[in-house]
């Protein structure tokens, strides 16, 4: 009897101990994990830039920094004077007072839905009033979807249609009204497209169903400044981009292998995911005039131009008003124009303010299989133009058709040097100071074709002229001439 009672007490005690340990672990977990929720963001879409800004919580309300919200849209500055915060955006003046709802915008009273907050010189406005406030400041229509925190300045929304073809195997074709560049992820039975910087809006019904045994439905959802399109399928599917990013086709992978070199990441010291993912990166497909491109047909883009940085990654702050990502994009567009003008069909890796990792840039380029890859950088230091080719270690752990990711450029190094020499000669001819160097600069070492990088410095230290067409145009023309002069060498290797 005593033994039974003792065992019962001992059992109760062990049970209690287990409960106590769980309780202790739960408290410790809460203590460790608290304070790390997903950061709230609001995405702003406009004809000038698409971007996200963080949302801060004050007095249990969502607030955003007004200066950060306006900065990508134009010339903006702010000044604190006591409790007053004066904002100057282009030719518009606005004045806010700390802890007051009433403000003056364009010399008229404006009522915020909650108090304006001055936080260490930073002007915070309630998110609920951002739409009306921006509409007043920008002088145009602004639409805000509060549930998903997506704000559209003007008529920038991108619409899309989705249709499943009757061919075998069936494919889902989505046509967008503007180029898009979503992040794509796959999981069994699903393909997710996340639109972070694209103003894609919902179709008439958020859930589309298809009369196909392979691709059954697509559902659209928006939250925290992003839109997501989930395609449900009964077989593994891939997404491919065409029509300059206007069209995304989702379907089962083709059985036939492509003739282009396959590159995978087999180096153990790189933490980024393998670039050869099951989902091909967004790439413009061959021009529409080619009706039935065969897998062995030569790639159509002669050159791929990569405007470095972009999106959240701004690059160097070249001046108070100028960031590297804008200069590189402007120059890349001019260079594309010059190359196209010489009959060299050119693709831009990014043609908008988009965040792309070096791996993504490399996979996009390698999949396009161009004859030449040109990466564009800009600097406020020095003068003239610098040309870089990859600095890579001599050996890579290649395995059959798979090239070592970190040294994929090595077989093309001599060709890259030849193009750099040709471009340097063309720049010299036009009297531009030019210097040729090697550099450990990603993604040059991951590119499986001739690859160079250009770094443009301002003329005579005049940083204001760095982003001017008058300065950039002749450089772009000289670079294009240099590439065109090396066309035969580049074409010979392609064949």
């Amino acid at each position, binding site marked *: 009897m005593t033994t039974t009672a003792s065992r019962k007490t001992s059992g109760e005690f062990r049970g209690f101990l287990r409960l106590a340990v769980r309780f202790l672990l739960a408290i410790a977990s809460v*203590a460790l994990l608290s304070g790390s929720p997903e950061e709230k963001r609001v995405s702003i879409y406009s004809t000038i830039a698409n971007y996200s800004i963080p949302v801060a919580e004050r007095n249990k309300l969502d607030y955003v920094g007004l200066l950060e919200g306006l900065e990508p849209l134009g010339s903006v500055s702010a000044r604190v004077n006591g409790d007053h915060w004066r904002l100057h955006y282009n030719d518009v003046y606005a004045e806010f007072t700390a802890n007051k709802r009433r403000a003056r915008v364009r010399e008229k009273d404006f009522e915020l839905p909650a108090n304006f907050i001055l936080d260490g010189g930073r002007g915070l406005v309630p998110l609920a009033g951002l739409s009306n406030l921006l509409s007043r400041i920008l002088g145009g229509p602004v639409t805000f979807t509060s549930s998903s925190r997506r704000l559209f300045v003007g008529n920038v929304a991108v619409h899309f249609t989705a249709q499943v073809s009757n061919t075998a195997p069936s494919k889902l074709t989505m046509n967008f009204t503007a180029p898009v560049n979503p992040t794509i992820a796959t999981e069994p039975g699903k393909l997710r497209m996340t639109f972070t910087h694209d103003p894609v809006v919902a179709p008439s019904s958020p859930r589309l169903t298809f009369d196909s045994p392979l691709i059954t439905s697509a559902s659209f959802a928006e939250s925290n400044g992003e839109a997501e399109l989930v395609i449900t399928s009964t077989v593994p599917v891939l997404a491919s981009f065409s029509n300059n990013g206007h069209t995304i086709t989702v379907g089962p992978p083709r059985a036939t292998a492509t003739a282009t070199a396959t590159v995978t990441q087999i180096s153990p010291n790189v933490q980024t995911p393998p670039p050869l993912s099951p989902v091909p990166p967004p790439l413009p497909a061959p021009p529409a005039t080619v009706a039935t491109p065969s897998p062995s047909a030569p790639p159509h883009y002669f050159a791929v131009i990569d405007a470095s940085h972009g999106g959240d990654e701004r690059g160097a702050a070249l001046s108070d008003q100028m960031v590297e990502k804008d200069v590189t994009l402007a120059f890349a567009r001019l260079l594309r124009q010059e190359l196209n003008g010489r009959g060299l069909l050119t693709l831009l890796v990014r043609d908008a303010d988009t965040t792309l990792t070096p791996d993504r840039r490399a996979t996009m380029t390698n999949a396009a299989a161009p004859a030449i890859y040109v990466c564009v950088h800009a600097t406020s230091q020095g003068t003239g133009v610098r040309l870089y080719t990859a600095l890579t*270690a*001599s050996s890579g752990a290649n395995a059959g058709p798979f090239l070592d990711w970190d040294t994929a450029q090595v077989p093309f190094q001599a060709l890259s040097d030849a193009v750099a020499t040709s471009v340097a000669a063309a720049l010299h001819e036009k009297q531009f100071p030019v210097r040729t160097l090697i550099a450990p600069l990603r993604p040059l070492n991951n590119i499986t074709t001739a690859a160079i990088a250009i770094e443009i410095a301002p003329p005579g230290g005049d940083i204001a002229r760095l982003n001017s067409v008058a300065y950039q145009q002749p450089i772009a023309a000289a670079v294009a001439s240099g590439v065109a002069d090396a066309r035969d060498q580049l074409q010979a290797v392609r064949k």
Partner: protein
Amino acid sequence: MIPRHLILGAVVMIILALGMSFYAWQMRGGASQPETASPQPVAPPALGPSEQVTLYVAYDDGGFLRPQSARIPLPAGRQERAEELLRALLNIYLDKSSPHTLGAGSEVRDVYLVDPGLAIIDLNAAFADGHRSGVLIEELTVASLVETISANIPGITRTKILVDGKERDTLAGHLDLTNFYDVAAFSPLVLQLQSTR
């Protein structure tokens, strides 16, 4: 009726839980505290006799790398010598009249020499965070560090740069820090950076 020892046990557990939570919270707070950057690096202790070394000094004006002889006190150990060499180099860059300025508080935390021939250079966060952004400007810094250490410490064939003990994608947005630098592959770059053409 709950036995007294169970109640006592419960009280002890709750006190322990609260204590651990407070400790965990303190640890998290402590980890996120930025290190106070000292405006100047600590002067290297004179641990040995002065020796003649070659420092590869970057010059922003023209974007060159130039060898510069210097006499600095060096300790006997290879690893300590490597650290003192790079600290001597940084002293030049942190001087007001530096030809290649680095951000205030830039320091080399440690240099680890790992056989065979690998040198790991651990910079502090202020070094990378305060570094100017640009391909050439970052390349000058990296080439200066790599060449100074490989030219003065025999047997180094590869280098790796860490920031605050961790791998970082780039120094300041451009130069790749994810890969190991092969000293032999770096030699042509050093020659290019020394060339005035």
